[in-house]
């Protein structure tokens, strides 16, 4: 990976935290703060949200696998009261919406049922296949 490639993909257009935390020799790239990612959307902010939701999604998937496949638990798995934020991943990445505070807040409260249904359906399916 090259510094020019990072500069190309994430051009410095913002005076805030951009490039803070970058240490290319060790492969580290600074994440944008969520506030700036939502209010001043750019590619680094977009990728930050994509990456963080991916981290959470992987944890939930691994834990569910551990409970059901490793330990043989046959009940339902509930993610978290705030798992609905994962819905941002599915909605904003596949639409033309921008990461504005308004959208962030609106999605936070309106996707609760969508995500709850999604995960309940997913884990019900898993349960039946066991």
């Amino acid at each position, binding site marked *: *990976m*090259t*510094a*020019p*490639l*990072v500069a190309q*993909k994430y051009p410095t257009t913002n005076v805030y935290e951009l490039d803070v*935390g970058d*240490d*290319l*020799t*060790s*492969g*580290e*790239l*600074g*994440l944008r*703060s*969520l*506030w700036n990612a939502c209010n001043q959307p750019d590619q680094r902010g977009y*990728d*930050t*949200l*994509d*990456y*963080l*939701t*991916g*981290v*959470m999604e992987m*944890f*939930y998937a691994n*834990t*569910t696998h*551990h*409970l059901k496949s490793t*330990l*043989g*638990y*046959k*009940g*339902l*798995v*509930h*993610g*978290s*009261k*705030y*798992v609905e*934020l994962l819905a*941002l991943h599915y909605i904003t990445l596949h639409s033309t919406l921008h990461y504005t505070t308004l959208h962030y807040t609106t999605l936070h409260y309106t996707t609760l049922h969508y995500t709850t249904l999604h995960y309940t359906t997913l884990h019900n399916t898993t349960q039946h296949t066991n």
Partner: protein
Amino acid sequence: MKQHGIYLWLSIYWFAWVNLGGSASYPGSPTTPWDMLFFNTQLQNSYFNVWDTLLTTPNPYENGLTFAEDPAVAFASIMNEDSLLWYDLGSIPSGELNILNTGFGTYFKSKYCLVDLINFTFNFNHDDDNFSTKINTVP
């Protein structure tokens, strides 16, 4: 309770109840593990150990039935109230944040570097003689 149709919901983890005591075994010696369960494998292993014990220990009052097998245990909650998109990243201890930053570097490479390498192959720029060296600087 089971005989009366009452089910059990297991919820074992809320970060605010966990005190790591500034343990040096965790990067940044954190006290409260804000967001850490999502990405710190050491904490995840301890967390899984709790589930292992809780779900697989035979219940002496139910003829050795485990919680994993007991239909009265209707729900298992992975965690209570935590999200990488909620508190903002400033709550995460700096040593722990480095784990996320390193992961973000890997994410960047997987997303962009292959395409960039292909472009480089077909549009070789002699002015960038250090290109291969730069590629190798990142594990």
